């Protein structure tokens, strides 16, 4: 069972000058990280929480899932708001940093995928909202010296039976000192006013005026832009390369060899692109060069005719097959497919001797952070990931080798400057990881 802890005093009130002092609530999962460990970690501004109610009335909901078009920057806030009884117009969304508190309760890592975000967060998010609501009610009870039972929460206010009211903004700091309720009552579904009702997406306004920040849009002072020439075959290596023409392109700063390939680092995209086009590389493509789609297909088709694992067996199908009146056989296949998200892959990395700051649109924060840490030679805790909007995910931005993140860190390590490694459309289509090829064989009998 998850346990709610109040992070307010520890972080926000201590932080003093922070403008959004108020109520902060987070859930820690004892099996992921003990409460003592959680309390011991003490950065100045620890956002290990799902909710902040600011003294200015803003209700900030920290979403631990990546927004890639599926609407999770609206659906998870709806779960919190259903119980919080806040003013929906005051709700703002922030992407969660990487932290054990934000892991997917089903998979144990921080990730978005498998169409499970709402299902997995269904109870936890409502509890966050309900706990905060109860603490706000307690704060009003203390302020007015009245019984909690004479109070109700409604649309961002706690209202007394006499009709007087205090806003959540007015109550936030007092609420932060209230004990977190051990058990929080959750609404019966028949009382839902937000869940199950249409609600406009919170991210629409910023997606109709160009202000929504995608990874490709990240710009930082002194940032360089890099394109990497990767081997034309998976597993290929650079045999030799000639970079003098690339280096002669104006605004190309460096050409460096990294594990992923040859990086052309420039002041801007166009120079990096022209520089990469001018590279002369001899590749050692290795054994995978002999693979072909046709050969794989034939291999898959042959395998589909051999007995596979038994998932379930009822009765005596072999015997039943002997007496069927009609037999149906079919082969089903899908090819390798590029996910082809609208936004080609990209990753900004600012690698310092003791820290690594990453901005990217990813579905796989824990894995990316750990892979980045290995390349950076840092402990994972030194790596932070700022998740931007994703211009589509489709699983391409969730892969165990974190290719686009690792490539970013490799280049940043080589050039020792903040750098955004971007992929062209061609890179994206040619560079997998593809949706796997699949081949299935069906034999059925009908009575």
């Amino acid at each position, binding site marked *: 069972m998850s346990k709610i802890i109040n992070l307010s005093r520890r972080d926000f009130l201590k932080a003093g000058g922070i403008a959004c002092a108020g109520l902060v609530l987070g859930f820690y999962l004892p099996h992921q990280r003990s409460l003592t460990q959680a309390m011991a970690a003490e950065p100045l501004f620890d956002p290990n929480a799902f909710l902040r109610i600011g003294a200015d009335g803003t209700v900030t909901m920290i979403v631990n899932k990546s927004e890639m078009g599926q609407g999770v920057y609206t659906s998870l806030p709806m779960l919190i708001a259903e119980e919080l009884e806040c003013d929906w117009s005051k709700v703002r969304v922030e992407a969660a940093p990487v932290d054990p508190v934000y892991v997917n309760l089903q998979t144990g890592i921080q990730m978005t995928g498998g169409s499970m975000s709402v299902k997995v967060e269904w109870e936890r998010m409502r509890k966050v909202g309900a706990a905060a609501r109860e603490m706000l009610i307690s704060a009003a009870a203390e302020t007015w010296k009245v019984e909690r039972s004479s109070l109700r929460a409604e649309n961002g206010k706690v209202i007394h039976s006499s009709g007087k009211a205090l806003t959540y903004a007015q109550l936030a700091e007092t609420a932060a000192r209230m004990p977190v309720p051990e058990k929080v009552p959750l609404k019966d579904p028949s009382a839902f006013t937000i869940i199950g009702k249409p609600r*406009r997406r919170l991210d629409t306004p910023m997606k109709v*005026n160009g202000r929504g920040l*995608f990874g*490709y849009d990240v710009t930082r002072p002194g940032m360089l832009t890099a394109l990497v020439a990767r081997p034309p075959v998976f597993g290929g290596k650079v045999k030799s390369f000639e970079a003098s023409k690339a280096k002669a392109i*104006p605004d190309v700063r460096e050409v460096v060899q990294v594990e992923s390939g040859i990086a052309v680092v420039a002041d801007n995209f166009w120079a990096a692109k022209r520089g990469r086009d001018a590279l002369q590389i001899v590749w050692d493509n290795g054994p995978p060069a002999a693979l072909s789609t046709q050969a794989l297909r034939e291999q898959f088709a042959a395998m589909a005719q051999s007995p596979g694992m038994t998932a379930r067996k009822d009765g005596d199908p072999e015997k039943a097959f002997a007496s069927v009146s009609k037999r149906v056989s079919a082969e089903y296949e899908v090819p390798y497919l590029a996910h082809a998200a609208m936004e080609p892959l990209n990753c900004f990395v600012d690698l310092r001797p003791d820290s690594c700051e990453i901005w990217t649109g990813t579905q796989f924060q824990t894995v990316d952070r750990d892979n980045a840490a290995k390349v950076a030679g840092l402990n994972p805790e030194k790596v932070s990931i700022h998740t931007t909007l994703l211009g589509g995910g489709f699983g391409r931005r969730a892969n165990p080798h974190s290719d686009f993140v690792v490539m970013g860190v490799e280049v940043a390590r080589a050039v020792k400057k903040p750098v955004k490694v971007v992929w062209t*459309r061609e890179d994206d289509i040619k560079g997998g990881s593809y949706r796997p090829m699949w081949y299935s064989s069906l034999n059925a009998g009908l009575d």
Partner: protein
Amino acid sequence: MISFKVNGREYEADVPVDMPLLWVLRENLGLTGTKYGCGKALCGACTVHVNGNALRSCVAPVSSVIGKEIVTIEGLSADNSHPVQRAWIAEDVPQCGYCQSGQIMSAAALLSANPTPTDDDIDQAMSANICRCGTYQRIRRAIHLAADIMAAGGKK
């Protein structure tokens, strides 16, 4: 030095003449609402207006817009009040959102030329703006709604 006007402001950029307008907008001017999707004028994510016409900025060398007036998604309105933006919000069109700047700019250009487009007009004008999330049905509804807003006196 190349001079042109973007969203009503005069700019001069010291860039190679063959650099596509897209990268000048995004990197020199910081107008990142215009997106890179393919670099080959195949997806429409980079669509802007040049002298009122929709243009794929990813293949337009900056030298081709010297002295011209460019409008990007950021210049459509200061407050999401353009009829197309209002319609997009009302229909909750975007999903991931990456293609939507281009969709909106193409739609705005269509409505300037044809204030009462039919479904066929819309399909024809919008067919080269790709959306990987598949928001096409809402895009079509939103364009009809924007036409209604404009007909009812919504400005622009």
